[in-house]
């Protein structure tokens, strides 16, 4: 053994910067950070420019491509957006479905039992409360939600992975809890299509439509496609979803008169059962815009935090104003904006903030990951920086 040790020779291996970035991304990152820059040559707190636009592919978009026609008849997409940020493109399309609000099951005894609302009261308000309770209490009653599906193009097909599910579920959660969409806004005012004495088509609304006892709501689905992933995607997905929602136009819905009421004999005992079967038709031309709550429109910023244990101050010639100094002054945490590239993507210490630019936040996630202690300072910095960014970006929606 001792002989072997004598023969050991240590040779320095030299990697070119591009090789080192592949072999040891973390070392490359530290080297860059010490020099005051990031591998993407951006500053620590420099955001990436983001181009936000409507994709112009939805049904009610008047586009030149469409021969100047009022609607794009080929699609059922009712809102769309396209976002480009560095090498990453995100396309979001919105579609909608109709659902009955007070479904049969509400009056089912078992459902009442589950929701702890066994009351024998025919008061109408009570009934409404019951329905609210089953549907999910105050929150769901006030806030509308979106069901997003994320697809990250990887060159392979298959079921959605952890990341895609995580993104989709986080979008759903934040949209729902932030109250971006008022639930009232999703309710459908069903009209009755009829023909008046003069033979013109008219649409009856409100009290004129006696037959419709049921209420309907829109359910909004979003499909977000991401191409060219370089870093965390939540910021871009959120931005594209909000942009697409602000572009969303909900069609007018009316009832086909012919099929408004149907009486039929069915069931085991051939009893008379009144089946209200509705043929709901969405108007192909008329629409209304989906209104979002302006104060709840947020901008999402995800920050990565790098810990440098012995940052030599002399190395920093640039004026880096984002560096925090902990009490001991040995360890420094540096906030990086808009993470990009493998090394930055590997940072597990992150803060993700959704800010409306006016002092409110609708979601704050702090992950310590494998980094050092998260300080109050760094959280405050992240919140502040996200506000600045939000102020800057929200007008672009």
């Amino acid at each position, binding site marked *: 053994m001792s002989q072997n040790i004598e023969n050991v020779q240590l040779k320095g291996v030299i990697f070119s910067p591009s090789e080192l970035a592949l072999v040891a991304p973390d070392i490359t990152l530290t080297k860059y950070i010490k020099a005051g820059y990031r591998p993407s040559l951006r500053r620590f707190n420099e955001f990436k420019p983001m181009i936000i636009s409507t994709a112009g592919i939805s049904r009610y978009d008047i586009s030149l491509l469409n021969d100047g026609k009022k609607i794009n008849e080929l699609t059922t997409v009712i809102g769309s957006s396209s976002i480009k940020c560095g090498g990453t493109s995100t396309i979001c399309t919105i579609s909608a479905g109709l659902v009955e609000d007070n479904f049969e099951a509400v009056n089912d005894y078992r459902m009442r039992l589950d929701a702890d609302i066994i009351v024998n009261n025919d008061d109408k308000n009570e009934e409404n409360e019951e329905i609210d309770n089953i549907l999910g209490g105050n929150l769901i009653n006030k806030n509308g939600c979106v069901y997003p599906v994320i697809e990250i193009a990887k060159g392979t097909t298959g079921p959605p992975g952890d990341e895609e599910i995580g993104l989709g579920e*986080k979008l759903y959660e934040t949209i729902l809890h932030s109250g971006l969409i008022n639930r009232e806004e999703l309710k459908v005012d069903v009209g009755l299509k009829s023909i008046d004495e003069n033979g013109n088509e008219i649409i009856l609304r409100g009290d004129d439509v006696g037959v419709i006892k049921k209420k309907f709501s829109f359910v909004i689905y979003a499909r977000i496609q991401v191409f060219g992933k370089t870093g965390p995607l939540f910021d871009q997905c959120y931005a594209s979803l909000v942009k697409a929602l602000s572009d969303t136009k909900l069609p007018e819905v009316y009832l086909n008169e012919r099929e408004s009421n149907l009486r039929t004999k069915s069931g085991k005992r051939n009893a008379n059962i009144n089946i209200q079967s509705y043929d709901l038709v969405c108007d192909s031309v008329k629409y209304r815009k989906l209104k979002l709550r302006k104060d709840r429109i947020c901008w999402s910023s995800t920050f990565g935090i790098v810990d440098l244990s012995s940052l030599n101050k002399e190395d920093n010639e640039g004026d880096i104003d984002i560096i925090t100094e902990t009490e001991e002054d040995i360890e420094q945490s540096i906030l990086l904006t808009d993470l990009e590239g493998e090394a930055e993507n590997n940072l597990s210490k992150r803060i993700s903030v959704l800010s409306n630019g006016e002092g409110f936040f609708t979601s704050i996630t702090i992950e310590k990951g494998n980094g050092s*202690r998260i300080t109050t300072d760094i959280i405050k910095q992240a919140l502040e920086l996200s506000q600045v960014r939000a102020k800057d970006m929200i007008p672009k929606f």
Partner: protein
Amino acid sequence: MSAYTAKQNILQQVDGSATFQFSTTKIISSITGPIEVARPRNEKPTEAFLSISVRPSTGTPTTREAFLEVKLKKILSCMINMEQYPLSEIQIVVQILESGEREQFTCMELACAVNSLYLALLNAGISLKASFLSSFCASKDDNIIVRPTKEELDTSTANHLSVFSISDGKADELIYSDSIGKTTETELFSALAAISSDVNKINETVREVILQSVVDDYVWKF
């Protein structure tokens, strides 16, 4: 504020198990490992692979549970000494026995799952960097309600969940924090303060449970 109970060593056929209950939310979790990686593609040369599955109280797992798994993985992988178990797998199963909240919320289940997993990991003898516990709160009209009930959660404007590491019996570092709903900076910090003091409180009981369980394991020694 709701009560809580904890119990270790429930299941015999796994290496570690525990239940944790926050009044209406009850979760049992189990740990098996370190064992051979079930799928070779999951094998990591330098650290353990955590296979986490969350089972809902009713029905089959959905994207909601998948999202909980993602969150749990983030929390656990920075608390377990992962590099101690290279090329191996640690199987983690979280069974929600009673959800106690609406499906639109996850904070009660996540906090409960984190706490039960902490106990189960200790029971399985998995090497941990530090102790950790979690709690949650809701905010409404500038009030912070620590460990709210289902109804209080429904009417709140925002809810906060945090995980703190515990050093010398006191909440120490912030490991993970998740706030959703309309909130402000001051509210976030007061929520973090409220949760950390609640974690201190929970820790008193949980510590007793753990130490009692260690003593029970060593009955034959005395």
